[in-house]
């Protein structure tokens, strides 16, 4: 299985330098189609995406991408992880709260 990266040219360049072979770039309007295509690819084990690109996805596609387990989608970047919301929903308490 491979590790794949999806994002802008600037985002993916470093990953290519870090040795990742499967690099995909997409324009904002094609981003959703590409993301859904990649999460349906069984040869990908881990898909890294820029967390700020999640805004380009429709709510339905966003849910599919963030909840995908095969491949595992790891969000990289400053935007808050979707796990926090999931924890709040399942446990009933915001355990990520620092204060």
């Amino acid at each position, binding site marked *: *299985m*491979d*590790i794949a990266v999806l994002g802008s040219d600037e985002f993916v*360049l*470093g*990953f*290519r*330098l*870090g*040795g*990742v*072979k499967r690099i995909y770039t997409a324009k904002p309007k094609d981003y959703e189609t590409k993301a859904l295509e990649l999460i349906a690819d069984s040869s990908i*084990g*881990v898909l*890294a995406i820029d967390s700020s690109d999640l805004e380009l996805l429709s709510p339905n596609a966003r849910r599919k991408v963030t*909840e995908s*387990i095969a491949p*595992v989608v*790891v969000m*990289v*970047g*400053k935007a808050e*992880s979707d*796990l926090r919301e*999931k*924890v709040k*929903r*399942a*446990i009933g308490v915001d*355990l*990520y709260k620092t204060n």
Partner: protein
Amino acid sequence: MPAADVKPTRSELLEIKKKIKLTKSGYKILKMKRDGLILEFFKILEQAKDIRDKVNHDYEEAMQRIAVSKAVDGAITVQSAAFALKTHPELSLRSKNIMGIVVPEIEANSIRTPMDQRGYGVIGTSVYIDEAAKAFENLVQTIIEAAEIETTMKKLLDEVEKTKRRVNALEFKVIPELQESEAFIRLRLEEMERENTFRLKRVKQKAEAHG
């Protein structure tokens, strides 16, 4: 099943009693499962928080390093160095079982490549490209660790949610309805018994009056 739909017979009462017993034992087991899952979840929560911080930290560092290398060597040189790489990380997935939930164990090889095997010339490029490459290799390693921990978290949370829904359905819907049906049958049977006694007394009175 609403209480009004239940047949008020002794066999139905016995059947409902059996159902209540079974449902209560199922409820206890599910509650224990939910508590166990939450304990497992708390065990990996700290790891998940740490790995998320590490991903963010490594990402920032890697982006800084690549920005420096682009500024020093130029974007074209960095791009050509990136395209020259020959070795690529490969993942192997295994699975382990946590309270009946299959979670992945991800192993990766060939993430870190020695400088002389990177495919680009050492003389034509600067040390900044090497540092950026090393920083991104670290980031890839961290992403793979995060993938394993975050998938485990997601799966555990899904199972916690599912088990919680089942426990609540049993506690607030199934068991109270069964108990309501049991009470209804019991009352109805008692009522029928009283009616019967009264009827017998009336028959006896009539028999005595005629005798």
